[in-house]
Structure formats: C-alpha cells, structure tokens
C-alpha cells in the first residue's frame, strides 16, 4: 500500500485538479446566476493557445496569463451576449462556442506555430520551510504558482458568494431573477459579469495547461477536460468547496490509476481508465439528491415574465 499511496500521487492529484478547478469555479459563478456555458472547453483551448503563443514569442509568462485572461473575457462576453441578450438556447450556443474554440485554436496553431514546440513554463515554487516538511512538503508546497492560485480561489469564491453583496446578487439572480429585478438588481449586468468571469477563469484553466503543467500546445490539448469541469459544478452542488472536492476526487483517482500502472501492478487498463468517471458518477448520484440547483438555470430572463 505504501508503494501506491505515495506523496507523489497526492502531489499529482493537486496538479491534475488545477485546470478543473479554474474552469469549474468560473462555470459555477455563471451557473449560480442562471447561465449554463457548455463552451468552457473551447474557451480553455483558446486561452491555452493564446498563453502559449505569447510565451513562445515573448518568453513572458505573466503576459501569457494576461492574454489568456483577456481571451477568456472576450469569449465570455460573446457567450453572455448570445445567452443573455439574444436569449439563445444555452446548451446549443455553448456547443457552438466549444466547436469555435476547438477549430480556431487548431487553425491558429497551424498558421502561427506549425509544429509542436516546448517552452519553459511556470517552474515549481518550493515554499520556504514548508516545502522541507516530510511528505507534506512534496504534496502541498512544491507546485507552480497557478496550482496555488487555483486552490486559493476556492475560499475566495466561497467568501464572495456567501459574505458579499455581489454574491448575494448572484445567488438572487440565479434563484429568482424576477424578484431580484424587482429589488433593483440588474439581472443582465450580473449575468454578463459572471459569464465573463467564467470565461476568464476558463482561459486561465487553459493557460495552466499550456504554460505551467504541460509546457506544450497541440490540437485539442484539453481533450474534453472542460466538459468534466462543467459536470463538477453539479457534483459540487454549486458550492466552491464542493467543486474543489469533486476536482480533487476525480484527479486523485486518475493519479492513483497512473501510479498503479507505473509500479507494474497488473490492473486492466480499461478498468483503471474508467474508474475516475465511475466514482464521480456515483458521488454525483448521492450529491444531487440534496443539490440546490439554481432555479433559473438555463432560463433567459424577460422582464414581466413570472
């Protein structure tokens, strides 16, 4: 057992969870305000490419992150315009955004870069003293800055949702937009803001892949990771800590199956590969029984409608 549950497995869990966490937290804000965005994966791809290309030509990692945030914000605004202003069917428009991101990132990659190249991404930062702690040091305190940022966003998001006026408005708009509107809250403005923030965090999720965890870009780099992130919002019952739990659980099972293979234990690969999804689905079944789904999720707001 000690060969299986090693410090590196838990450290790998935190790394794997990072892009899920960024994307899921962003999607959570949007869904809490009533907007579903299935285009997360497409925005991640565009953010990943933008960050990677920026770093490739400038060697400036911070600039790469900024570019990913800007791209995510712009695509979030587009998503908001389609879903909120045009009141398009959110599921279908999200798929459209996904296909756009998938195709455009590939086109830009082929035209501007051409062949896979590697860069020097965010290096691991060993936190003084803490990184020297036995076992815990390797697990928690030797990661790149985006890993720390992703997990730091969890309590920040929880605080915003629970303890700020802005969070109250988000929750009100997602539960009862008519009542919120009657109280003077601009439903449109709130939804635009949350979906844009969601886009920014999706862009950052992509950047965490291309300039921190992988240091490479390729066609369909995310490989559907954005869709898992959307599912994790449901798993987490639209709560930041729940989302984190889901991301960590899913990633832990992935890391565990990799470790089992790496030490030569003969487990059927198909079983190992499906286990993260099976366990997440089981947990989702139990979690959804008590879920507080935003009542107005996927419902466009029209003033005057009850």
């Amino acid at each position, binding site marked *: 057992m000690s060969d299986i549950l090693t410090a590196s497995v838990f450290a790998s869990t935190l790394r794997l969870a990072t892009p899920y966490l960024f994307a899921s937290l962003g999607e959570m804000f949007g869904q809490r305000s009533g907007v579903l965005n299935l285009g997360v994966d497409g925005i991640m791809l565009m953010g990943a490419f933008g960050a990677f290309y920026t770093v490739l030509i400038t060697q400036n990692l911070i600039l790469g992150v900024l570019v990913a945030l800007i791209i995510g914000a712009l695509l979030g605004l587009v998503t908001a315009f389609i879903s909120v202003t045009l009141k398009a069917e959110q599921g279908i428009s999200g798929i459209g955004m996904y296909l756009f991101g998938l195709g455009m990132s590939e086109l830009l990659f082929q035209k501007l870069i051409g*062949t896979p190249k590697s860069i020097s991404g965010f290096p691991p930062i060993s936190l003084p003293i803490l990184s020297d702690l036995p076992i815990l040091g390797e697990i928690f305190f030797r990661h790149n800055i985006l890993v720390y940022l992703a997990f730091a966003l969890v309590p920040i998001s929880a605080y915003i949702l629970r303890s700020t006026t802005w969070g109250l408005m988000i929750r009100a708009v997602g539960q009862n937009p008519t009542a919120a509107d009657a109280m003077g809250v601009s439903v449109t403005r709130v939804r635009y803001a949350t979906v844009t923030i969601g886009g920014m965090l999706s862009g950052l999720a992509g950047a965490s892949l291309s300039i921190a965890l992988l*240091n490479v870009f390729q066609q369909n780099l995310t490989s*559907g990771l954005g869709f898992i992130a959307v599912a994790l919002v449901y798993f987490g019952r639209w709560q930041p800590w729940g989302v984190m739990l889901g991301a960590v659980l899913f990633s832990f099972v992935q*890391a565990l199956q990799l470790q089992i293979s*790496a030490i030569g234990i003969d487990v059927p690969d198909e079983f*190992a*590969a499906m286990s993260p999804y099976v366990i997440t689905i089981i947990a989702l079944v139990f979690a959804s029984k008590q879920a507080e789904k935003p009542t107005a999720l996927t419902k466009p707001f029209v003033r005057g409608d009850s």
Partner: protein
Amino acid sequence: MLKQIRLFALVAVLLLTTALSAVHAQDDVFSVAVVSPSATTDLAFSQSMYDALVLIQEDMGEEAFEFVFQEGTFVVDDAAVALRDWASSGEYDLIIAHGSQYGSIVEELAPEFPDVSFAWGTDENTFGLDNVFAYTVAAEEGGFINGFLAAQFSATGNIGVVGPIEVGDAKLYVDGFKVGANYANPETVVNVTYIQSFSDVPLATEAARALIANGADILTGTAQMVVGPIAVVQEEELMWFGTQASQAELAGDVGVMFQIYRWDVILKDMIAAIEEGTLGGETYVLTLENEGLEIEISPFNTVLSDEGKAAMQEEIDGLIAQIIAKEIVIFPEEDMATAEAMMDGTAEATAEATTAP
C-alpha cells in the same frame, strides 16, 4: 448565315477541345484523398502519412500527383461523410482511411463503390474485397531496437512507457520494446501505462511524471499525446525514444532515437497496382526489410558524442540485419496467436475511445 454557322462550329470545336484537354489532364493526375484522426503536425501517426504523401508528390511532381488530407477527424461519423463524398465524386484514384477506427466504414462503403480503390490501416484485413488495400506496420521491430538500446542507456534499469490504447501498432511497438529491453538486459524493468486515449496530453504528462517518480530514467511512448511526456523528460533531463515519426526537433537533447514510419514505401506499390488495374485485395506491412521502417539517431541531440552516435549506428545496423535474417525473432510463435487476437476487434475499441465528447 454561312458565316454564323462557321463561327458556331469554330466555337464548338474550341470548347470541345478544351473540355477534352481538361479530362485528359485530369486522367494524368493520380488523386488521393486521406482522412485521419489527428493533426498533420502531431509528430506521430497522422504526420507520418502526410509526410509520405508530400514525398511522393515531390517524386512524381504536382502535375502527376495530388492529394487532399482531412486531418483531425476523430469523430468516426464525420470521417464516414468525407469518405462517402469522395467515393461518390469519382475524382479520386485512392481513398485512404488512416486509422483503425475507420475500418467498419470502409467495409460498408467499398462494396457500394467497386470501381474506387480504398486503403485503410493499421490493420491486415481487406474484408475479402477486391477494392480494399490494408496496411499495417511491424512496429515491434523498431520497438525492439529502441528497447535494446534504451536498456543499455538506462542507469536505474527502470524504463517507463506511456502508451495510448493497447491496440494495433501501439501494442506491437510497446511489446517489441519490452522484448528488446530484456534481450539487452534481463534485469531491466519496463513499466507500461496505457492512458486509454491517443490525445489526452495532460494525462499522458502525469503518467510520465508517475513513471519517473517510480524510478524510470528513460521514457518512450507512442501516439500524438507523447508531446506531453517529452516535455517532462526535458524538464527532468532524462532520455526519450520515439516512434511513428521523428520527434527529434521537439525533444532536442533528450531525444535519442526514433522509429519512423515510411508509408511512401507501400503507397508507391499501391499506386503502381492501381495503375495496372488492381484496386485492392492486398495487405502491405512496413518492415525494416522493405525499408518501410527507418531508425533515426537524433540529429538534434548534442549530448551524445559523434563517436557515441557512430557506435549506436553500428549496433542498430547489426540488429536490423539480425531481425531481417530472422536471427532475432521478436515474438516467438506461441506469442503470435495472442498478438493477433489483440489485433482483432481493435478497430471497435479504438473508435469508442476516440469519439469526441
């Protein structure tokens, strides 16, 4: 009136001549259409086929050979649409479905278009159809050589393999690699992680990290997701052995050697067969013997000395000669049945695993 008739006749002759010239020119051009599951820049499966077609075009000239390449078609249903469109257009001499997940489509389409030549791989099954070529690759040969050399380079005696799905040429390569490593050093441990995806770069990257954390000082892998593990190997300053296409430029100083698929070797044979009227019914295999497999020592590796590379080349040449002469049998006969059984039904497994979300 007579003048008008003469003018009309002249225009008609000119138009007819132009049309005939166009048809005649088109008949002189050998046209190929290809569908593949990943990008032509994947440094792996699709790129090897694309590079082969470019080579053939350079040999034959653009006026004699042209091709269209639909890449990134990992959704099998989308590939079916493309293949049907090409077949019904009548414009292509050869339609290639480059991916074992497309087998069922080819099997269904080919009988509907008996005058169109199809090719698909990697597999040996022509479905008993006269207009289907099948092609595959003896990837275990280069895998053996890679494994043999890797075992000699490994200081820890622990080598890691990041594999996609345990099917087709990926399985052959990995199995051959393991045999080669243990042939050089029976004590060598080769740990294999199949991540059940050809394209999941994040998962492949973490698989590489897990293998290294457990003692591997050399990695290898196959399929387009290897770009992730290569980046990890660079970070850790270890060694990388590759296959399918050359990843030498990406890998830089950590890239040691690569098995390269030379699909042009068999494509030329197919083209010749089609031009002689044989549209299918044959299976082609890339091997070291027919020079369909090339073993390249990385020209981008500046860590290995020239003398070291020369010694490696001598060893590689010796192994190639032994494999061709059957002095080295990579898979003894009793293991072949198992390998062939694994090849059966691989198309279905691959199709399920490569469907987009």
